[in-house]
């Protein structure tokens, strides 16, 4: 069991590096991406500052508000371009990873690779108990452990290598999750 878990850990480290390497090759090192990224970061910071300066009470009038809106529009466009640049290579990487994943899961098919110290909630049991026999839900399948390893390792590697998106950009912009936050303010 220990050998399996360590193997899965190293597989996910390797695939995380592979993924980042491929993304670097296809996206991060391209001029277009670099330009767009610095642009988005600069604009996000500027916008943040402007918003803070104008404040919620709207003392500075409509003119400032209009300016902010225009800038927001520009930022949105840049963000869209940025995700388009990323999209193509993400697609390619996605295909490679699906192939790798199906290969690995066929190797570990039906094997209990670890014992979970807890019983997962019911909608996770489909993943954590995938392709396993028996009804002991503390048995852990390959895919569950792999997903957990990847969640932890990939993000940390991105952060270490400096590929993670900057905070002000993801806050201002364009992330799907930022909208309710902005509305709440």
């Amino acid at each position: 069991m220990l050998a399996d878990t360590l193997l899965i850990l190293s597989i996910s480290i390797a695939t995380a590096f592979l993924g980042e390497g491929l993304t670097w090759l296809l996206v991060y090192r391209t001029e277009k991406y670099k330009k767009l990224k610095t642009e988005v970061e600069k604009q996000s910071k500027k916008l943040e500052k402007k918003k803070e300066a104008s404040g919620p009470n709207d003392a500075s009038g409509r003119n400032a508000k209009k300016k902010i809106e225009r800038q927001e529009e520009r930022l949105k466009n840049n963000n869209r371009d940025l995700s388009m640049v990323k999209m193509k290579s993400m697609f390619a990487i996605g295909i490679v990873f699906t192939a790798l994943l199906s290969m690995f899961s066929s190797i570990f098919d039906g094997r209990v690779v670890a014992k979970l110290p807890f019983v997962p909630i019911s909608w996770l049991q489909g993943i954590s108990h995938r392709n396993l026999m028996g009804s002991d839900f503390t048995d852990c399948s390959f895919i569950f452990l792999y997903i957990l390893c990847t969640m932890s390792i990939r993000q940390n590697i991105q952060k270490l290598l400096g590929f993670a998106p900057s905070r002000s950009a993801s806050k201002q912009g364009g992330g799907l999750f930022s909208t309710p936050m902005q509305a709440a303010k």
Partner: protein
Amino acid sequence: TCDPQDEFLDVIYWLRQILGLLCGIVWGIIPFSGIAGLLIFFAFNALVVYVYMNSFQKVDEEEYGGMMEILKEGLMTSFATFLVAWIILYSALHYN
């Protein structure tokens, strides 16, 4: 980046990762099990970050968009790290 806010959040992020790993190792050795293990982890993790920012740094949480922003920083990654360490040690030490 030379932004002090970003730097502080980075410190919180890495603090969380180390904490997650250490907790996972300890939880696996003791061993904790069941939902209690998860809950204790979340409570402990939030507590450490809270104490760190209040007593050592004295930061103004409003600068970061509220308490939740800081408590959320790196939480999911830390949780995943914790789970991996916990599961591996738990199954290696207590099921072989």
